[in-house]
């Protein structure tokens, strides 16, 4: 019951984060949506803790996931602050990638 609940909740939060990321017009909202999606990923790890032989592995995976995603979000925050200083904007419309013209 609890495993099903955690997985369904994880899927729901992941998709809410996905909708938020696809429709965000500001970088802060994009950041919030990514954090929601990472939260959903943590919740999806919960069933691993139900298998007694896997609890140590599950904890290792959780630690790695939390620290790696934390580092990734910190880089995104640094990029966002730099972007705002340079372009005086946090709008996603101002972001160009690769060969796009501004």
């Amino acid at each position: 019951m609890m495993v099903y609940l955690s997985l369904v909740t994880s899927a729901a939060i992941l998709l809410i984060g996905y909708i938020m990321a696809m429709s965000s017009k500001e970088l802060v909202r994009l950041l919030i949506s990514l954090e929601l999606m990472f939260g959903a990923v943590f919740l999806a790890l919960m069933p691993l803790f139900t298998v007694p032989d896997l609890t140590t592995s599950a904890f290792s995976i959780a630690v790695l996931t939390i620290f790696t995603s934390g580092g990734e979000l910190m880089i995104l925050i640094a990029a966002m602050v730099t972007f705002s200083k340079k372009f005086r904007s946090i709008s996603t419309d101002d972001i160009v990638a690769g060969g796009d013209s501004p």
Partner: protein
Amino acid sequence: MDTASLAMVAMCCFAVLTAFAALFTKDTFYSALYMSATLVTIAGMFALNNVQPVFVLITFIFVGAIGAVTVALAAMYRDPKPKIQIDFIWFLPAIITFAAIFNAIFGLKNVPSAFSGSEVSAFVENYAVFALFFFALAILLMLAVVKFVRREEV
């Protein structure tokens, strides 16, 4: 249904509701606050199922550090005239994906139901590898940030 299951149902509902609130609110500042509430609830679910180390990690790192920075950034870049930012066309693929995931989850067989606490002592045996990993991660983070700053100065 026992008390733990009821608490889990309530926490799941609360997490989804706060995630929806983060999506539907116009103000980015409140959106960041609702996101933090969602993450605290997710961490709380781990605590409820006797996995306290993960609760501590999520609360300290995600809510305490990154969540607080996000709330501060949202307050700093707060729009004086906020407007709703939802593209309703993306609801259709999201609902289809959710239906597929829901179907896959309830098709699972032999799902264990009892939670057992994580073995921190066994994890600590491999501490040297993890310490090396975190050291490498910290160097990578610092290199990336230094690169941003140096590009900014040019």
